[in-house]
C-alpha cells in the first residue's frame, strides 16, 4: 500500500495504482479522453495532466504510477493551465460542428470544453479535413471530428480481439481507418460508438433521429443470448430510438453485443402486427380482442373434443419471459394438454438432469477459471460477450481448449483444439475422455463405450489442458445442444468434468432458457415429428425457430388450428389461423433467468404498439375466457413470484438423472454442419435491417467446405451450389472454410435461403447449381 495525497486529501492505494485510479477511488474527477478503465493506457490525449510535487512538469494522471508520499494537485494553477493548453490544441482541428453532430449533448469534448476551453480560438489557419471511412452498416463516421484518442483502435485489438482499426500516417496527417477496402466486422463492434469521446464514430441506424436530451433512459434486459446483458433503452414519443449498455460488472461489464444494441430496429418494423386477426374462409380479417380470444378458446376446445388433448401442442421460444411461459404452461394444463415445448432447436430430447441445466457457476467465477474446455460452440457468434470475457481471461493466463466441428478463430489463443466432423462430436469428446483416463490411470464409466483406435494428439492436448487444473470448466455450446446426440455429448462431457474436477456448464441458447426449464416448459419433445391437429405458438416461427424447420412448417400447414401469439405478421400470416399480436420485450414487463441462474426482471419501456398486448395479459385473459381458476393476476410480478417461488439456486443442477449410454458410431459421406447464424437466432434480430447488412449475415448465406471437399465436389469458391436434404433444396454461393474437417458442408440453419433443409447435423448432398 502506498500513501498519496490528492488535492490535500490523504489516502492509501495498492502499489501499482496510477494517479487516475487513486483519484477515481476518492471521487476526484480528472478530465480525460483516451483513458478508459477497460482499455490499455495510451496517454496520448494529454488531457489528464496534473501537477505532482517535485515533478518538473505536469504528468499524465492515467500513466503515472503512484509513489509513496506523492502529492498530486489536480486543480492547481499549473494543472489547469496545462489542461487548458491541451484543450486548445484539441480544438484547433476540431470542426466544432456541434449543432449538426449526433454526439452533441453527450460529447466528452463538448463537456470538457465548457470547463477548460476558451470562448474564442487563437487559431486562424485552415483546419484539416479528414475523409470519412466506411466501417460497415452499424457505425457512421465523421473523421474530421476525431481527436485521435485511439480508444476505438485499442478496443478492436484488446476487447474484440482483432485489430480492425488502426492509426495511419503521422503528425497532422494521422487518421483512424480500417485497412483499405475492409470494414469493421466484429460482433461487438458497436461498442466503439460508446467509447468514442467525440462524434467521430456514431450509430448509423440512429443517426440524425433524436437528440440525447429528448430521450428518456429506461432499464431493460437483452432478450437475445443467455448472458442477459443489461440495457438502457432510450425512448422518445413512445418509440424505442436506440439501445445502450447499462453497466453491470457481473454480466456485460460496460459492453453490448451488436445484436443487443441494434436489434431494436425490428421493434419499429413495418412487419409489426397491431390488431388481432382471424382467417375465415382463407381470408384474413381484423377482429377485436374479445372475438379473437373466443375464437381461440372455442377452437382449442373443439380440437380437444374431437381429437383428444394429445392433438394439441404449445411451442414457445426460450426468448419468452418466465411469466409468459409459466402462464402458457398453466393454460395448457387447464386444457389438459401436456405438450409444452421451448427446446425448439433441439434434435435430441432425451437428456434428463436433476435440475435446470445452467452455466454451473457465475459468469464472474467462470472468467476466473484456470482452464476452460468449450464443446460444440460457435462461441463468438452464440455468446459474443462471454467470448469477450474468456478472451480477457486467456490474457490473464487461462487456458482455453475447444472440441468443435469447425476451426473458427476465437480471436484469442487456443491452448488445444480438436476439430471433428459434426456427426463425430460425441466420439471427439470420448477421445479426450480416453486420453484423460490414460493420464489419470482411471477407468471409463461402464456406460461409456471405450471406442477403439489411436487417440489423436489433438485430443491428448485437450486433455492435458484440463488435467491438474485447480479451477476448470467444461462448457457446452449451441452446436452441442442442438446436436442429434446431445445426451451422449452431455454424458461424455460430464465424465470429463468428473475426471478433472471441472465444473460442467451449459451456455444457454437464449435469454430465458434457464427460466423455461424452471417453469417446466419442456414437456413436449419433438412436437412436429408427429403432426398435431392444433399448435399454439408463442413468439415462435415454425421455419425459423425449429431445428427441422421444413418438417415443422409442413406440420403447421396441415394442422386444423394454428394460434400464433406473435409481434410480427410475416410468418404468422402464412400458416396461422388466428394471430394475437403480443408485445416484444420492450413493451411488456417480465423476467429472464440468465445462464448463471440470475433472475432479472424488467419493465416495459414503451407502451404496446396499437392494440398489441403483453403476452402474459393475453394468456391471462384467455384463461378467463376458458373459465379456468387461478388466472386472476393483476401484475406480472404476481406471476413471477408464483413461477419462481423459493430460491432458484437449489433448482439448478447439471447432474445427470440417470446414466446415458454413450456408443461410438462410425460416420462417412457428406455431412452438414448447420448452426443458426448470429442474426437469425430470434424474431428481432431477423428483422433488424442493419444487422442483416453485416458481414456475419452475409456469411450465413454461403455454403462452406474445405478446399479438398470442394475439389471433390467439383466446386470452387464463388460458384453456386445446390444443397439437398430430405427433399428440401437450397441454392447458395460457395466459399472456402479451411477450418472444417473433410466432407463437412457448413450451411447455416433457420435462414431464409436454407429453411427448406432438414436437420442441422445430418447427411446432405451437394451439386453444382
Amino acid at each position, binding site marked *: 500500500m502506498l500513501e498519496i495525497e490528492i488535492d490535500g486529501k490523504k489516502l492509501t492505494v495498492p502499489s501499482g495504482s496510477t494517479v487516475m485510479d487513486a483519484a477515481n477511488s476518492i471521487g476526484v474527477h480528472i478530465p480525460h479522453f483516451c483513458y478508459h478503465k477497460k482499455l490499455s493506457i495510451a496517454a496520448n490525449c494529454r488531457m489528464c495532466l496534473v501537477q505532482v510535487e517535485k515533478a518538473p512538469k505536469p504528468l499524465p494522471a492515467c500513466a503515472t504510477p503512484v509513489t509513496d508520499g506523492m502529492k498530486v494537485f489536480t486543480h492547481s494553477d499549473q494543472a489547469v493551465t496545462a489542461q487548458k493548453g491541451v484543450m486548445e490544441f484539441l480544438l484547433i482541428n476540431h470542426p466544432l460542428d456541434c449543432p449538426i453532430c449526433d454526439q452533441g449533448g453527450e460529447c466528452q469534448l463538448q463537456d470538457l470544453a465548457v470547463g477548460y476551453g476558451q470562448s474564442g480560438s487563437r487559431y486562424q489557419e485552415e483546419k484539416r479535413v479528414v475523409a470519412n471511412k466506411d466501417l460497415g452498416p452499424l457505425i457512421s463516421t465523421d473523421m474530421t471530428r476525431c481527436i485521435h484518442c485511439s480508444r476505438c483502435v485499442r478496443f478492436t485489438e484488446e476487447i474484440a480481439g*482483432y*485489430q480492425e482499426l*488502426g492509426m*495511419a*500516417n*503521422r503528425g497532422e496527417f494521422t487518421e483512424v481507418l480500417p*485497412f483499405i477496402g*475492409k470494414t469493421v466486422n466484429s460482433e461487438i463492434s458497436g461498442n466503439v460508438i460508446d467509447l468514442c469521446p467525440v462524434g467521430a464514430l456514431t450509430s448509423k441506424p440512429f443517426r440524425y433521429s433524436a437528440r440525447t436530451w429528448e430521450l428518456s433512459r429506461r432499464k431493460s434486459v437483452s432478450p437475445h443470448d443467455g448472458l442477459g446483458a443489461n440495457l438502457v433503452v432510450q425512448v422518445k414519443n413512445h418509440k424505442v430510438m436506440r439501445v445502450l449498455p447499462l453497466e453491470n460488472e457481473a454480466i456485460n461489464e460496460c459492453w453490448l453485443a451488436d445484436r443487443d444494441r441494434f436489434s431494436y430496429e425490428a421493434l419499429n418494423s413495418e412487419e409489426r402486427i397491431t390488431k388481432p386477426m382471424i382467417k375465415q374462409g382463407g381470408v384474413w380479417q381484423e377482429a377485436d380482442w374479445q372475438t379473437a380470444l373466443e375464437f381461440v378458446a372455442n377452437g382449442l376446445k373443439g380440437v380437444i373434443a374431437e381429437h383428444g388433448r394429445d392433438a394439441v401442442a404449445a411451442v414457445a421460444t426460450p426468448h419468452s419471459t418466465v411469466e409468459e411461459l409459466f402462464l402458457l404452461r398453466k393454460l395448457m394444463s387447464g386444457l389438459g394438454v401436456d405438450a409444452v415445448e421451448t427446446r425448439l432447436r433441439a434434435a435430441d430430447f432425451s437428456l434428463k438432469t436433476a435440475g435446470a441445466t445452467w452455466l454451473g457457476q457465475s459468469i464472474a467465477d467462470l472468467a476466473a477459471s484456470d482452464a476452460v474446455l468449450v464443446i460444440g460452440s460457435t462461441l463468438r457468434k452464440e455468446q459474443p460477450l462471454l467470448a469477450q470475457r474468456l478472451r480477457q481471461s486467456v490474457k490473464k493466463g487461462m487456458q482455453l481448449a475447444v472440441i468443435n466441428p469447425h476451426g473458427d478463430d476465437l480471436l484469442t489463443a487456443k491452448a488445444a483444439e480438436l476439430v471433428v466432423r459434426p456427426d463425430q462430436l460425441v466420439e471427439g469428446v470420448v477421445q479426450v475422455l480416453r486420453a484423460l483416463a490414460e493420464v489419470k490411470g482411471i477407468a471409463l464409466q461402464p456406460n461409456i463405450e471405450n471406442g477403439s483406435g489411436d487417440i489423436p494428439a489433438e485430443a491428448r492436448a485437450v486433455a492435458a489442458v484440463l488435467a491438474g487444473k485447480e479451477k476448470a470448466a467444461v462448457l457446452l455450446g449451441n452446436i452441442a445442444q442442438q446436436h442429434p446426440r446431445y445426451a451422449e455429448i452431455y454424458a461424455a462431457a460430464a465424465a470429463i468434468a468428473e475426471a478433472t474436477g471441472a465444473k460442467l456448464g451449459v451456455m444457454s441458447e437464449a435469454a430465458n432458457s434457464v427460466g423455461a426449464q424452471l417453469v417446466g416448459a419442456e414437456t413436449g419433445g419433438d412436437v412436429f415429428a408427429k403432426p398435431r391437429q392444433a399448435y399454439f405458438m408463442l413468439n415462435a416461427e415454425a421455419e425459423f425457430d425449429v431445428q427441422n424447420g421444413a418438417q415443422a412448417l409442413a406440420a403447421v400447414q396441415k394442422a386444423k388450428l394454428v394460434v400464433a401469439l406473435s409481434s410480427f405478421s410475416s410468418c404468422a400470416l402464412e400458416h396461422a389461423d388466428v394471430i394475437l399480436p403480443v408485445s416484444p420485450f420492450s413493451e411488456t414487463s417480465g423476467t429472464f433467468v440468465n445462464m448463471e441462474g440470475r433472475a432479472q426482471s424488467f419493465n416495459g419501456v414503451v407502451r404496446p404498439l396499437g392494440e398489441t398486448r403483453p403476452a402474459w395479459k393475453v394468456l391471462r385473459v384467455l384463461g378467463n375466457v376458458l373459465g379456468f381458476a387461478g388466472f386472476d393476476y393483476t401484475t406480472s410480478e404476481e406471476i413471477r413470484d408464483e413461477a419462481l417461488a423459493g430460491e432458484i439456486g437449489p433448482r439448478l443442477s447439471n447432474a445427470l438423472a440417470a446414466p446415458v449410454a454413450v456408443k461410438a458410431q462410425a460416420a462417412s459421406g457428406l455431412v452438414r454442419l448447420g448452426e443458426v447464424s448470429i442474426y437469425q437466432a430470434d424474431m428481432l434480430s431477423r428483422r433488424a435491417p442493419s444487422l442483416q447488412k453485416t458481414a456475419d449475415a452475409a456469411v450465413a448465406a454461403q455454403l462452406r467446405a474445405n478446399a479438398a471437399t470442394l475439389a471433390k465436389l467439383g466446386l470452387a469458391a464463388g460458384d453456386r451450389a445446390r444443397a439437398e436434404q430430405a427433399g428440401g433444396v437450397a441454392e447458395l454461393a460457395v466459399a472456402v472454410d479451411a477450418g472444417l474437417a473433410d466432407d463437412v458442408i457448413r450451411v447455416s440453419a433457420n435462414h431464409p435461403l436454407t429453411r427448406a433443409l432438414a436437420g442441422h447435423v445430418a447427411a446432405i448432398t451437394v451439386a453444382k447449381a
Partner: protein
Amino acid sequence: MLSQESLAQIDRELAKYPADQRRSAIMGALRIAQTEKRYLTNELIEFVAGYVRIPPVAAYEVATFYNMYDRKPVGKYKLTVCTNLPCALSGGYSTAEYLKQKLGIGFGETTADGKYTLAEGECMGACGYAPVMLVNNHSMCSHMTPEAIEKKLAELE
C-alpha cells in the same frame, strides 16, 4: 508474392523475437518486401501482414508512419537529401537545389525516364558528414558537394 530469398530473410527477422511477439518483426519484414518490390502496394502490405500473422491494418500503420517506406512507385535510384538543421547549415539545401536543377524534378518527384526519385529526408544521424544523402534507403553518401554529387551520379549511370 515475394521471392523465397525475401521470405527467408523475413523468417530471420521473425526468429529474432519471441514466438508470441511476431509483430515486432513487421518493420524488418516491410523493409525486405520493399527492397524486393521497390515499393509497398496495399496488396503487398496485406501479404506481409499475413506472413507475420498480424492484422493488415497494424502493418499499414507502420508502413504509413515511417517515411522510408514508399507506397508509390519510385525511380531506380531514390535519392534522399537530409534538410534537417545540421545538414541545412552545412549546405543541405544547396545539395537539394543542385539535384533539383540537375534532374529537373522537385521533392517527391520521379524523372521521366524512371531513373531517379528525389526525396527530402530527416536526420540520418550522421551530422558530422553533412550534407548527407541516402541512395535507395540503404547507402549513405557524405559531404555531398556538387562535385561529390556528380561523381555519385556517374557511378549510378
